[in-house]
Every structure is written in structure tokens, then in C-alpha cells.
């Protein structure tokens, strides 16, 4: 969530995303076992990354700094309202995923925050020990068995995969709040969302700045970060507390002779063995 540093807006973008989605979903196939990076569009992705960085430097980052002067309670309220407005979509996706407990929890969150949380400005539900379970149609597709497909970096929206791009398009197009509200109110909801994203950019500015402007290859770092974190969220690769596979293990103590092999083979579910090389000499 916090890693999604750019925001989506605009009809044109939505249309072009839809085209990309239809073109790409066919290529998704079954969920990959892996941890590898599938990036056949790297040259295009890299130029979009450069564009996104330019937008961040010229607009997003300064705007978020401007938004930073807004008092903290107001920013909190905006972020909470934006999260609350996401809940109907989350619940719809929970139902499509047949995750009925989460659907019930999110419904309870929605009810709690709309009433005791003063129309969603206070995240009362979290205070009461009902933590958020944000989800999206990309996750629904994952649950349905759609593989993540190639990595893509989207203009303004940032890192994604073909599957998650389709998910974003569906989430934006079929957002229950947008469909239910009159045009003006729907617009207000979008504006709220934009400010919430600005707030995220500001809150995580150290992280985002170090990623975008201090790493040697910000494209590769953003790609790695997105894929690892996304797989973690979806409970593949990164693993949840429930999984017992050796997620993320890289063996740095392994033998150098096998090192090349290990590098070529898909990484052992995120496990990096730093010992695969060092003591072998």
C-alpha cells in the first residue's frame, strides 16, 4: 500500500490500461512457483520509470511536501476516509475470493468507522482491534489461479504486473463507491484518494527518496521491492506466518560450485543463502 507511490487517475490512462490488460491477461497463465523476475518489457518499463521519476521530482514530491504542512490530524482523517471508501471494493473482492471471514471483518470495519469513526474520519475499527485487510482485484485474480504475468511499470501508477494491472483497471472501473455515488460525490472521493496518496508519499518520503534517488539502479530496486512485497502480501514466495516453506532464504554459506546453478535456478522461495559462496575458498 505504502509502496504504491504513484496514483492512478484520468480516463485516458484507464483506457490505455484496459487495452494493456486485455492484451496481457492471456499471457498470464498459471501462477508461477517462483521468485524470479519476469520482465520481457524491460526497455519500455525503464523509459516509463524515467518518466515516473520525472513526475515525482517535478510534481508529486513537491506537492507532497506542500501537503505536509497540513496538520497531522487532518492528514490522518483524509487517509482514514480514503481507506474507508476503499472498503466496499475490498468487501466485494473478499466475496469474489470466497474469503467470507475477511468480508465480514471488512463489513464490520466499514460499519464501525462510518458510525463510531465519525463518517470514516477516525479508524475506530483498528483501535478496537479490527485491523484492515486491504485487498484488490489483482489478489482476486491470484486466488482464482491467474499467474502474475510479466512485470510492468505503469505511467503514474508505478510498479505492477500484468495481472495486477488488470486488477487495478477492474477496481477503478467497478469501484462500488464510484458507481453508487452521484458524480460530484464520486469526484470528491477521487480527490480524497489523491490527497491520501500525497500523504503516503510524504509519510514514506525517506523510503521513497532513498529508493528513487539514492539507489544505483532505482528501476531494478523498485521492481524487486514491488515483486517481493506483492508476493508476500498474496502469501506466495514471501510467505505468511502460516507458511512453512523457507521463504526468502538465500544461502550465503553454500558452495561456490553450486552458486552459478543456484543463481540460474529460481531462488529458493526468497531464501538467500549468503553462505553459498564465502567460506568456500
Amino acid at each position, binding site marked *: 500500500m505504502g509502496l504504491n507511490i504513484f496514483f492512478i487517475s484520468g480516463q485516458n490512462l484507464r483506457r490505455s490500461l484496459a487495452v494493456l490488460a486485455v492484451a496481457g491477461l492471456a499471457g498470464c497463465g498459471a501462477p508461477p512457483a517462483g521468485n524470479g523476475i519476469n520482465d520481457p518489457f524491460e526497455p519500455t518499463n525503464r523509459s516509463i520509470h524515467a518518466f515516473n521519476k520525472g513526475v515525482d521530482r517535478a510534481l508529486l514530491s513537491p506537492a507532497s511536501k506542500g501537503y505536509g504542512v497540513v496538520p497531522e490530524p487532518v492528514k490522518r482523517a483524509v487517509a482514514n476516509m480514503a481507506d474507508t471508501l476503499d472498503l466496499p471494493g475490498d468487501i466485494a473482492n473478499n466475496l469474489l475470493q470466497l474469503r467470507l471471514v475477511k468480508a465480514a471483518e471488512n463489513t464490520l470495519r466499514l460499519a464501525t468507522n462510518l458510525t463510531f469513526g465519525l463518517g470514516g474520519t477516525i479508524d475506530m475499527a483498528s483501535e478496537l482491534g479490527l485491523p484492515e485487510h486491504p485487498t484488490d482485484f489483482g489478489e482476486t485474480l491470484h486466488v482464482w489461479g491467474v499467474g502474475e504475468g510479466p512485470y510492468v511499470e505503469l505511467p503514474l501508477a508505478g510498479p505492477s504486473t500484468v495481472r495486477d494491472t488488470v486488477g487495478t483497471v477492474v477496481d477503478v472501473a467497478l469501484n462500488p463507491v464510484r458507481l453508487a455515488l452521484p458524480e460530484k460525490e464520486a469526484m470528491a472521493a477521487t480527490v480524497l484518494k489523491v490527497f491520501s496518496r500525497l500523504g503516503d508519499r510524504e509519510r514514506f518520503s525517506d523510503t521513497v527518496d532513498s529508493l528513487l534517488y539514492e539507489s*544505483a*539502479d532505482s528501476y531494478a530496486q523498485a521492481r524487486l521491492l514491488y515483486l517481493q512485497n506483492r508476493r*508476500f502480501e498474496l502469501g506466495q514466495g514471501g510467505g505468511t506466518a502460516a507458511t512453512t516453506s523457507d521463504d526468502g*532464504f538465500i544461502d550465503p*554459506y553454500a558452495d561456490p560450485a553450486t552458486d*552459478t546453478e543456484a543463481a540460474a535456478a529460481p531462488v529458493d522461495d*526468497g531464501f*538467500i*543463502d549468503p*553462505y553459498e559462496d564465502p567460506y568456500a575458498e
Partner: protein
Amino acid sequence: MPSDMILNRRVFATGLVAAAALASLPRPAQALTADAAKALVDRTVATVNSIINSGKSEAAMLKEFEKLFVTYADVPTIARSVLGTAARSASKGQLAAYTKAFQGYISRKYGRRFREFEGGKIDVAEARAVKSYFEVISTARLKGEAPFEVRWHVSDKSGRDLFFNIIIEGVNMLASERTEMGALLDQRGGDLDRLIADLKTL
């Protein structure tokens, strides 16, 4: 026949006793245990907290963080793993210089970020053996943030119980640093000596 039966039974009983005795013997050379791995992370977290709350200057804190890395992390192994294939063609001297430069670089890079833990805490929940290492699962609770998961990979292959990787919400420190170091090396045309010199200033 009956005597055979008795003998068999006696042998069987003796075997049972022997097995029981064996099981109760202290396990030899089981150096690293889940408890020890958890204890290492507990000590690391406690040290992080004491550094953050020490009220020292940033420069002093970064020095403390470097000491912390050297004490609790397997820095030479991490450094070498992060360098990847380039480590194999490096000379002993280059590798030593690189490891030293890396130690400072990684301490500064992550030490600066540890400030974000100010006022927060990390609860160490559980440790379990996975293949050749132990995984310690902890939860970081920072001010104004939803709690997030931090996993520590601990091994004793260096001869001491040390952690060699940290995974935050699926994001893998070794993998991330490998990508970074590979890019840094590429930018310098694969020149390890230049990389070593520049790491000291990064």
C-alpha cells in the same frame, strides 16, 4: 521356543532401555537452537533500542550501529554474498578491503533508517529451524503505522550465532543489496577497486 521368546523379549526390553538412555543424553554439538537464534535477535533488538534512545549525535549513533552489525551479523558473509560472482575473481586483499568498506557502507545506510524505529518496538515472536538455518519472526510496531513483519535468518556457520539476512514484509535485504551492489559495480565498469573506494563515501 519359549526360551527364545523370553530372550527376544529381554533383548527387546534392553533395547528400549538403551534407546531411552540415549534419548536422555545431552545432544552433542547441536550448536544453534531456536532459543539461541531467538536470543540473538532479542539482544540485537535491545541494542537497537538502546542506541536509538541514547540521545547521541547521528555520527555517534552510526558508529554504534556499525559495532552492532559486527557483533550480531555475519558481515563478511553478507558482504561476499552481496558482491555475487565478482567476489570469486577478487584477490584476498581486495576482498578484505571490500568487506571493510561494505561494513561501513551498510551501517551508515541502515543506521540512518533505524531512526524511523524511534519510539517503536519490535516483538520477537518465534524461532524455528528451516533447513540449514533458523528463522526468527518478529513484529515491528512503529508509531502511527500498522504493525509489520520482520524475519531474521540466523546461522552458526561462521562459528558464531549471527544473523545473515533480514526480510521486511517479504522484502529481502540480501536480494536488495545484491541488486544495488551489482548496479554500483556495473556503473564502474566492473572495477572492484573503484567500487571499494566509492563505498567509503556512500
